[in-house]
């Protein structure tokens, strides 16, 4: 019984220590912003690896998610003779929820895990300590550009996801199932507000970009420098990012859309 309690205590203390290390790490990373402003090329390179290479999976998933939404929405709405509302349904669910959330989950799987593995391996092969020996701050030089690249990429990817998804929904709804194109767009425009819906979606994706990049880089930086440690860290990145994104999504939704 005492052993169990002690284990619980140790687990709690470990989690707290990790949270503390994570916060210090984040603080250090954010202070690397000045470094990036002097060397924008570092950031551009990481934007390519983090953002551009995630582009394709986001576009394809967005298209299919939109198409499925169009199909499912049509079957349900046509029972009530309200097919015209298909546009609203597809656009609202994509812009408010699915765009930011699914893009963040895909981003964590595609880019986050790669970042963790990269940083973890750098640590395991002592490249990071090597840099420190040369009086180069690895957090500012290696981590900060990756962090800001993720932070910038995810809102872009989420907006792309929503836009492509809506086009996919239109393709199925209007092209295949014969919903009136005018009603599809006009109802969408009448019911969606730029600030209330679209900007809130953008804010969500900014928060998710911050959190997923932070988790991915910190897990890599904090990994046990062995092959097993790196593989575990990569798994933790995906799992923790998914939890964080879904949990934060609930909180943000409650805060943003709770009033109206």
């Amino acid at each position, binding site marked *: 019984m005492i052993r169990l309690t002690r284990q619980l205590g140790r687990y709690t203390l470990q989690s707290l220590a990790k949270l503390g290390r994570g916060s210090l790490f984040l603080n250090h990373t954010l202070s690397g912003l000045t470094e990036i402003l002097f060397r924008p*090329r570092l950031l*551009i*390179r990481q*934007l*390519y690896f983090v*953002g*551009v290479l995630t*582009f394709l999976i986001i576009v394809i998933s967005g298209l299919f998610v939109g198409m499925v939404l169009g199909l499912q929405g049509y079957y349900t709405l046509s029972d*009530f*003779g*309200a097919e*015209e509302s298909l546009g609203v349904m597809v*656009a609202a669910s994509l*812009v408010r929820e699915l765009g930011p959330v699914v893009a963040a989950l895909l981003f964590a799987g595609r880019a986050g895990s790669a970042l963790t593995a990269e940083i973890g391996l750098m640590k395991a092969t002592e490249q990071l300590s090597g840099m420190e020996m040369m009086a180069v701050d690895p957090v500012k030089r290696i981590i900060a550009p990756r962090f800001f690249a993720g932070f910038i*990429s995810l*809102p*872009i*990817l989420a*907006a*792309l996801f*929503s*836009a*492509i998804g*809506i086009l996919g929904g239109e393709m199925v709804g209007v092209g295949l199932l014969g919903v*009136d194109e*005018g*009603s599809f*767009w*006009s*109802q*969408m*425009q*009448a019911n*969606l*507000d*730029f600030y209330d*819906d*679209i900007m809130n979606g*953008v804010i969500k994706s900014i928060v998710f970009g911050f959190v997923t990049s932070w988790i991915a880089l910190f897990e890599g930086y904090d990994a046990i420098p062995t092959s097993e440690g790196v593989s575990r860290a990569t798994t933790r990145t995906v799992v923790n990012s998914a939890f964080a994104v879904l949990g934060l999504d609930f909180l943000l939704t409650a805060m943003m859309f709770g009033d109206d």
Partner: protein
Amino acid sequence: MQQCKTLELLVGLFVASGIVALFFLAMHVSNLNPLTEDEGYTIYARFENSGGLKVKSPVSIAGVRIGRVTNIRFDTQTYESIVEMRIGKQYNTLPDDTSASILTAGLLGEQYVGLNAGGSEDYLEDGSVIEYTQSAIVLEKLIGQFLYQNKSDKK
């Protein structure tokens, strides 16, 4: 150096596509900016009550969509609503005694303006006003009337 340039190009394309997507969401999906209407002419109709009609609702004749509602105003002089409609330029042979009514697509569907062609020799032009109109049917009023009628029948 060459590799660096393609890298920059790809990143530039990526960021630009994000901006285009956001622009698309702002302009097409939300109501930030009304779309510019395609070529055509504008006609007006006065309704006692335009019900749930919205800007961009369809305007149709004989079941075919020929235009869109572009503006709905309230006239402070006559207490009527003025509905501005943009009609496609190929449909320029509508008689000037055409009547307009606000109809509903299905029980829960959206409202649209239905036109009924008249028999006049003259055609509606840009800026003409449709004189014969029928207001939107307000469901609550209809139910109210129905209930009232039922009561008086029983007496």
